[in-house]
């Protein structure tokens, strides 16, 4: 994260577009599905054929309200408008969106760093199709030809607009990440930025501390948290340098080039379109009554902030690293493993560590690992039936293939070493390394690790470190 020169402050607001995870599109019965053959999920309605009419998908409204509820918005009777402009991937040459009466107004989002960002609105709108430019330059100007895929046309979107409350690119990243967690928790979105199901525009301005807001520039279509953070830092610094060099920031829309690491002008305010918004006459007012709202509210799961608090409560005196681990575990939705293990009597520290490290790092997912198998593995480690290395191996096996931890431990030969064999092994080690033994006896405690390492090596990880230390101390 780069710092702005002393005395300068950035002011950032984010507009996050999220595709809703409905089975069908916003106004027709076509499948809402990513990655299918082009132009296979289309019908007269989402192709905007003459005479076709939109019918609102109620499940999309459920999800939009769930987002609003999670953001503490006010849900109110709302209307749809037409946003008129010509674009080949928009089949009606207008987009159905919400304008002055969005379904969700106001609200706020609390971030894990203790700050709060206000929410201005979260409204519904339809997505456009996708244009591919072929040949020539490969961009819209200079391409030989363009192909349009209308599978995405009419996919439901919610646009969440924050207040201009964000003061650093790190806070912007935190906001986007926390919002993503909420979208996943509500079931509204899969949060897959790389597939475009969550896209971010950033409004960035700079000012001297305490001064009124400066002129803002909007950076379009940031599609990863890394791009978001880099683009904001670049843009804020660009504006500061422009002003300090005697220039003036012009209100405009800018494009972020990930490879160049720079923003560039897309269009100025003067070139901005007049969208000629007016009420969509083909739709009726959207009035979610109390019963409808209640139906959504009772099905609303706990949000990340609440879940973090619940998880932290189980850890006595959490260290900073453990707080970070909690954020990771909640982000990935893995806390049920920790809760299950602790409920079964496991040490929360061990359980959290195994979830935040081993399970979180799994590349194959965790669908093979049952809560019960995980709990038992942690308990086996805690009781010394498995060394930590062995416990990790057992977990790896469980993640990949599932199964019973005791059986896996047995199959791997992870029998607990008998007390006698530990004694015999330690005796052997001390004879082979008399100098180190002498120094340990004289008080060099660090050498305990040296002997544990040797013991692990000799037993291929089957020795329990605690037993080795106990034997060393007994002989000291």
């Amino acid at each position, binding site marked *: 994260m780069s710092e702005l020169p002393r005395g300068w402050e950035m002011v950032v607001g984010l507009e996050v577009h999220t595709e809703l995870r409905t089975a069908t599109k916003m106004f027709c019965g076509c499948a809402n599905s990513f990655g299918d053959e082009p132009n296979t999920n289309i019908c007269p309605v989402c192709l905007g054929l003459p*005479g076709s009419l939109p019918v609102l998908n109620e499940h999309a409204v459920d999800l939009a309200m769930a987002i609003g509820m999670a953001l503490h918005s006010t849900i109110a009777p709302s209307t749809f408008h037409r946003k008129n402009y010509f674009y080949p991937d928009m089949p009606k040459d207008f987009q159905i969106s919400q304008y002055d009466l969005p379904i969700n107004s106001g609200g706020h989002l609390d971030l894990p760093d203790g700050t709060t960002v206000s929410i201005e609105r979260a409204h519904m709108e339809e997505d456009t199709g996708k244009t591919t430019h072929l040949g020539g330059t490969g961009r819209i100007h200079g391409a030989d030809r363009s192909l*349009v895929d209308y599978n995405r046309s009419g996919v439901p979107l919610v646009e969440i607009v924050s207040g201009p409350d964000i003061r650093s690119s790190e806070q912007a990243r935190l906001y986007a990440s926390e919002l993503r967690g909420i979208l996943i928790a509500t079931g509204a979105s899969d949060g897959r930025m790389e597939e475009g199901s969550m896209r971010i525009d950033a409004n960035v301005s700079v000012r001297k501390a305490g001064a009124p807001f400066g002129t803002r520039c909007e950076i379009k279509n940031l599609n990863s948290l890394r791009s978001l953070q880099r683009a904001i830092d670049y843009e804020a610094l660009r504006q500061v340098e422009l002003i300090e060099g005697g220039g003036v920031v012009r209100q405009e829309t800018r494009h972020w080039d990930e490879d160049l690491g720079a923003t560039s002008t897309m269009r100025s305010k003067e070139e901005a379109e007049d969208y000629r918004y007016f009420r969509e006459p083909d739709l009726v007012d959207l009035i979610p009554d109390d019963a409808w709202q209640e139906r959504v509210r009772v099905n609303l799961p706990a949000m990340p902030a609440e879940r973090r608090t619940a998880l932290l409560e189980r850890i006595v005196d959490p260290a900073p690293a453990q707080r970070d681990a909690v954020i990771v575990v909640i982000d990935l939705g893995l806390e049920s493993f920790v809760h299950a293990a602790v409920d079964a009597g496991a040490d929360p520290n061990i359980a959290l560590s195994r979830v935040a490290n081993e399970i979180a790092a799994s590349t194959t997912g965790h669908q093979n690992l049952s809560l019960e198998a995980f709990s038992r593995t942690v308990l086996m480690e805690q009781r010394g039936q498995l060394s930590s290395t062995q416990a990790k191996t057992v977990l790896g096996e469980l993640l990949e293939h599932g199964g019973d931890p005791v059986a896996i431990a047995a199959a791997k030969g992870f029998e607990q070493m008998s007390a006698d064999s530990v004694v015999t092994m330690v005796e052997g080690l001390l004879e082979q390394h008399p100098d180190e033994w002498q120094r340990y006896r004289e008080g060099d405690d660090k050498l305990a690790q040296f002997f544990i390492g040797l013991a692990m090596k000799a037993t291929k990880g089957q020795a329990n470190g605690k037993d080795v230390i106990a034997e060393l101390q007994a002989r000291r």
Partner: protein
Amino acid sequence: MKTARDIAKNVNNGSSATLELEETLVRIKEQNDELNVFLYVDEQGARAAAQRVDEIVARGENAGPLAGVPIALKDNLCTVDVPTTCASKILDGWRPPYSATVVEKILAAGAVPVGKTNLDEFAMGSSTENSAFGPTRNPLDPSRVPGGSSGGSAAAVASQMTTLSLGSDTGGSIRQPAALCGIVGVKPTYGLVSRYGLVAFASSLDQIGPFASNVTDAATLLEAVAGHDSRDSTSLVEPSPSLVAHVEDGVKGRRVALVRELVDGADEDVVESVMKAVETLRAAGATIFELSIPELRLGLSAYYLIAPAEASSNLARFDGVRYGLRVDADDVAAMNEATRTAGFGKEVKRRIMLGTYALSAGYYDAYYGQALKVRTMTIEAFKRAYQQADLLIGATTPSVAFAFGSKTNDPMAMYLSDVFTIPTNLSGDAAISVPFGTGEADLPVGVQLLGPGRSEASLFSAARVLERADGRE
């Protein structure tokens, strides 16, 4: 002339729908070259539909209330695999992959759709002179217009080429040509008939409705196409009304108000017919009184902001990208422009520009916003009127059918043809035009009856009283 009720009865009793159709096709062949009513005659589809009806009857089943009745469709109603042009060059070559809900409904009722009728391009006009495929002639006097925009559908019935037809009414486009052609035309309550598959002109005003040579047939057709459609969000959810059963109910005890603003400015012969109609209803037992609804005078101005505003958005999709005409150019924007320049006619361009302007930043409040306020005033004014009266009566149009070219160079004069019909589209209520008496050159006059939403049954019974008094049993 056989009525739709007669044909359906006979066909259901075993007379041939196919034969009925072949007679219809002969009539079309004889008259269409002169009158230019049909833009497309779907002989193959019609024969298949007639045959299906005959097969149903042969199995001993009832083929529906419109069994074997030949019907014409305004060419802004989508028909699967059959060209749908809106009388515009911009839809050149387009065959919809689906049919409008009303088309499915008339087929289910046993009707035989024979083809697509001429209209003012995208239903924008009052004479059918704005068609890209030449004007339709009035069967009663081929030197005069049939009215519009549903001029082709009105002329199809007036010329007896078909027994029934469907049109669309955005500002009077069914009632005005019905009046000028001497037949019955209905603008139903907004939402009574599904708009799914009607190529939109002004979505908040458009409504599909029937043309027929008599009131009972019009009621039969409307009953067949009315009803909730889950594909149209603005479709009424209430069950569709029983209409035919009430046609002979009469007007005894009904309160009928003659509305000054619905006759002011009309030609003398037209006013005379309206006054006679009022006396006829009085004689039939209605309570008659006069009423002034000054808000109706503002309707025309509001309409010519709201309708073009919606049209400017509805017609944006004709951009050359996906269907219809494409005029190639260097880039997409230039292609859009070249296509629309070549594909749209003068009146359509005029209204797109008007509507775009009315919605533009800085002008919205003064034009579109103001028009919406007038619309609300109109709705309220009608509501108050319908507290005092069950029905309102006035003229459908200011004059009988006018000559070709007499208003083409003066858009305002043309727009004024719809001054009496527009308010009902703004309010979303129902109205019917029924021929009553004659005027200049022995041409028919249309009397307009208006009622609140879902009052179609009582409009039909009042219209039926006038029809009988006018000598048509």
